[in-house]
C-alpha cells in the first residue's frame, strides 16, 4: 500500500501543535517541524511558509518566548519556549479542539 499523501495543516491547528510540542521543552523551528512530522508518523507535513510566521505570531502574542542558544552541533539556534500565558492558551485550545473533533467524530458516526 503506498503511503497516504501528507496533509497540509490549517493555521489554527498548526498553532495548537506548536504549543503542544513546546510543552516538553524548548525547541528551535526545525526541531518543532521534525517532531510534529515524527509524532504524526509523517501524516502531517509542516510547511515552512506557515511555520515561521506562526512562530513569530505566537511570540508576538506573548504565548511563547525566544532565546538564542546552541543546537546539537554547537550551532547558534533560536529556541522557543512556552510562557505561562502560552500554557494557559494551550489548555484552552486543546479543550476546544477536543470538543470540535469529538463533535465531528460523532456526526460522522451517527449521520
Amino acid at each position, binding site marked *: 500500500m503506498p503511503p497516504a499523501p501528507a496533509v497540509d495543516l490549517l493555521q489554527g491547528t498548526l498553532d495548537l501543535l506548536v504549543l503542544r510540542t513546546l510543552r516538553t521543552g524548548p525547541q528551535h523551528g*526545525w526541531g518543532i517541524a521534525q517532531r510534529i512530522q515524527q509524532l504524526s508518523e509523517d501524516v502531517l507535513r509542516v510547511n515552512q511558509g506557515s511555520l515561521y*510566521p506562526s512562530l513569530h505570531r505566537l511570540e508576538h502574542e506573548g504565548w511563547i518566548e525566544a532565546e538564542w542558544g546552541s*543546537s546539537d552541533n554547537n550551532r547558534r*539556534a*533560536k529556541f522557543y519556549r512556552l510562557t*505561562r*500565558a502560552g500554557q494557559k492558551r494551550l489548555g484552552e485550545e486543546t479543550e476546544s479542539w477536543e470538543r470540535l473533533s469529538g463533535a465531528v467524530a460523532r456526526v460522522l458516526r451517527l449521520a
Partner: protein
Amino acid sequence: MRALARARHLLRTLFSRQRVERELDDELRLHLELEAEKRLRDAGSVEEARRRAAISFGAVESVKDEVRESWGIRFLETLAQDLKYGARSLRRNPGFTGVVALTLGLGIGANTAVFSVVRGVLLRPLPYARGQEVVALHQPAPQSGIEDIGFSVKEVKDYGSLTPSLEDVVEYHSMNFTLLGGPEPQRVRTGVVSAAFFDVLGVKPLLGRTFRKGEDAMGAEPLLVLSHAYWQQQLGRDPGVIGRHFEMNDRVHTVVGVLPPLPGYPDENDVYMPASACPFRSRPATLDNRQARGYQAFARVKEGVPLARAQADIATVVERLKKEYPDAYPQGLAPTATLVSVHEEMVRSARPTLLVLLGTVALVLLIACANVANLTLARISDRGREMGVRAALGAGRVRLLRQLLTESTLLALIGGVLGLAVAFLTRDALVQFAARFTPRAGEVRIDGAVLAFSLVATVCTGLLVGSLPGLPAFDRLARALTGDGRSTAGRSRQRIRSVLAVSQLALSFMLLIGAALMLKSFANLQKVDPGFRADHVLTMTVDLNWSKYATPERRVDQQRVLQVFEPLWDRVRALPGVVTAGTAWTFPLNGAFSANGGFMIEGVHHDGQTLPRAEFRGASATYFEALGVPILRGRAFDAHDRADAERVAIVSQSLARRHWGADDPVGRRISSDRGQTWARIVGVAGDVRQTGLAVEPPDVVYASFGQFPGYTSTLFVRTIGDPAALADKVRAEIRSLDPQAAVTNVRTLETIRHDALASPRLTAFLLGLFAFVALAISAAGLAGVLAYSVSQRTREIGIRMALGAAPGSVLRMLLGQGLVSVVIGLLVGLVGALGLSRLVSGLLFGVAPTDPMCFLGSAVVLVAVALVASFLPARRATGIDPILALRTE
C-alpha cells in the same frame, strides 16, 4: 504581563529592526542547514542535499515577508513611508505648502481661539463645588412690568425656611464703602452677604476661612473676606493679612479670609462683609420692612432635586407669602418667583455672540478647506502622470488615496501648529472682548480640551481636504497613462472644482450678509440720539464717605452733602474753560443703575391700584444744561429747589406724552410714596437714554438734587476746550472740599458713549474681518477654477479664435462661466442665510435679520469681486495665439 511582553516585542521589532532581520536570516539559515544534513543520506552529495532542502523550503523571501507580516508593524511602516513621500512632495512645492498651511492655519487658529472662549465661558463647569446646583432667585412682577422686585430680608428668610427643595437661601447686595487703614482712604466695592453665602456658592477660601454660622447675626463683630484680585493688587498678596484690621463705616473690621480667583459674580466685589455689618441693611426699618426689597437671593438646590421641582416649590412659597402678608404687596404688586442657575445668569448675554462667532469661524474654515481642496485638485491634475505610473507599478487605489490623505493631514498639522500660535496671540484680545458679556471671561484658557478640539479640527480638516479631491481623482486613473486624461477625468475634476468654488461663494455670501447686518446694526446704534450732547463734557463719580454724612438714624444728612456739592459747582464753574457743572445720581447709558418705582398722579391714581412706573433720577439745577438735555416746557431746577421749598419734579417727554398726551403737565403733582408727599412738576425734559443705547429712553422722573442729594453722585462739567484736560483741577477742588472723598470713573461723556458701543463695534469688526477673509479666499478659488478651465480649453479657444471669434466674445464667454458660478452661489447662500438669520437676530439693533438692503449689498459686493476674479484668467485667454494653441496638442 502578556501585554507588557507584547509591547516590548513590538518596540524591539520597530527600533532594532536590523538586528531582528539578521536574526530571522540566522534562524532560517539554520533550518536549511539542518534540513540539508537530514537529507544528506538520500541525496548523496552535499550540493544535492542543499538543493533538495531549498526546494522543500520554498521561496525564502516570501517566507520572510510572511513572517514580517506577522510582526504587526506593516501599518506603521507604510505610514512612515507615506509620511516620507508626503514631506518630500511638500518640500518640493514650498509655495503651495506655504499658502495652504497659512490658509489652514488662520482657519484652525480662529476656530481654536473662539472655541477656547466658548469652552471657558459656556462649557466649563463653574469654579464652584457642584456649581450646577447654585441658583439665583427672582421675584418678577410681570403685571407691573418689573423684571425683578428683589427680596427683603424677611422674605429671604421665609424662602429659606419654607422651600423644602432648597438647601439654603442666602441674601446678597453690593455697596461702595470707604475703607481706612491702608495708605489712603479707598472706595471698596463690598459684597454684603449672609454667613452661608460662600457655602451656598460652594467656594473654599484660599487663606483663612469664610464666614461662619451666626456671624451675620445682629451685633456680631464685623468681619471681612477679601477677593483674590483685591488681595493681589492692593495688599501685594500679603500672606499675613488674616487678622488685620481695617476701619469701615466707623467700625473696626477684621480680615478672616481670602478667596481664590473667581468670576466677578454677582458683582466685581473687592471685599465681602456679613450682612449685619452693613449699616443700612441692619437698620430696624430695613430688617422689619417686608417692602424693603433691596436684596438679591441665591440658593443651593438639594442634591438630586431637579430645578423644576425647586421652581414649583418657590412658586408655592410666593403665593403663600402674598396671602399671609397682603400689606407687603401694595399698588397691585403681584410678583411671581423664579429661579435660574447662576451659570445661565453668567453666560446668558454672551451666548448668542459666541455662538455666532463660532459659526462664523467654522464657515471660514470650511471655505479654506474648499479652497485647499481645489488647489490640491489642480496639483493632482499636474501629478496625473506620477499617480498613473505609481498605479501601474502596483500601488493600489487605496494606497494612493492614503498617500494623498497623509499629505493633506501633514499640511493640516503644519496649519494646526500655526493655528495654535494664532490662538495664543489673539487670546488676550478675545478675553477682553468676552469680558464685556460675561464675568467668566477670566476663566478662558488654552487647556487640554482646547488643544484636543484643535487637534480634532486639524485632523478633520486634513481628511476633508484630502478626500474631497481624492475620491474622484482615480476614477479614470488609467487614462492618465495613455495621455488623454483630460478628456474624462479632467471633466469630472472640473465639475468638482466648480462645485467647490460655488460652495465657497455661497458660504462667503452668508458671511457677507452676517457682517452687513452687524455693520448696519452698529451704524444704527451709532446714529441713535442718546438725548444728550456728548461732546465737551467731563464726568466723574464722587463718593463721599457716607459715615461722615449720615444722620444718627443712618439717613443721608442732606445738608452736609449739599455743603460739599453746592460750593463744588460754584468752584468748578469758576475754573477757566468751564461752561457749567452739575450733578446727578448717576451718568446716562448706565445699565447697572436702576431706581425704578411706581408713582401716582394727583387726581388720577389712588392707593392700591397698579401704578405707572418710572426711573427716578436726582439732578441738580445745572444738570440739564451741562448734559445738553433740552427743557421742553416749564423750567429746569434752580437754586431754590431745596429741602425747605416745595418738592418739585421734572418729567421726561415720553412720560409726559404717555400720561398727559398733548396737555401740559407743568403744575400737576405726582407722588412716589403713595400720596404721603407730593412733588409739583415744574418742567418737561427731553428723553435721555439713561439705561443704554439700545434701550428705548425710559420714562424718567427727575427729583431736585437739592431735595434728594446722594453721597455717591456723578459730576458733569461742560467745557469749552478739551474736557479731559480739566480732570486734575476738578479733582483738586473736590479734594479741597473733602479730602476723604473718592473720585473714580474720570472720563468724558464721549468715552461713556464710545464704551457703550464697544461690544457691537468689536462684534461687527470681527464678523467683517472674517467675511473679508472669506471673500478673498473665495475670489482666489474662483479665479483658480477659471484659470484651470482656460488652460484645459486652450485648444477650443484657439479654434474659436482661428474661426474668427473676437477677443471680446471669448472674454464674455469666460466671464459668463464665472457668473454662472456666482449666481448659483448666491442662490445657495441666500437659502443658507435665510435659514441662519434667526441666529443673529438677538445681536441686531434696528435691523431685521432679513434686511433686503444688507442682502442686496452683499450680493453686489460678491458679484463685483467675482467679476474681477474672473476677469484676470479670462483676459489671459484672449491673449491665446490660435496657432500656438493648435500646436500644443
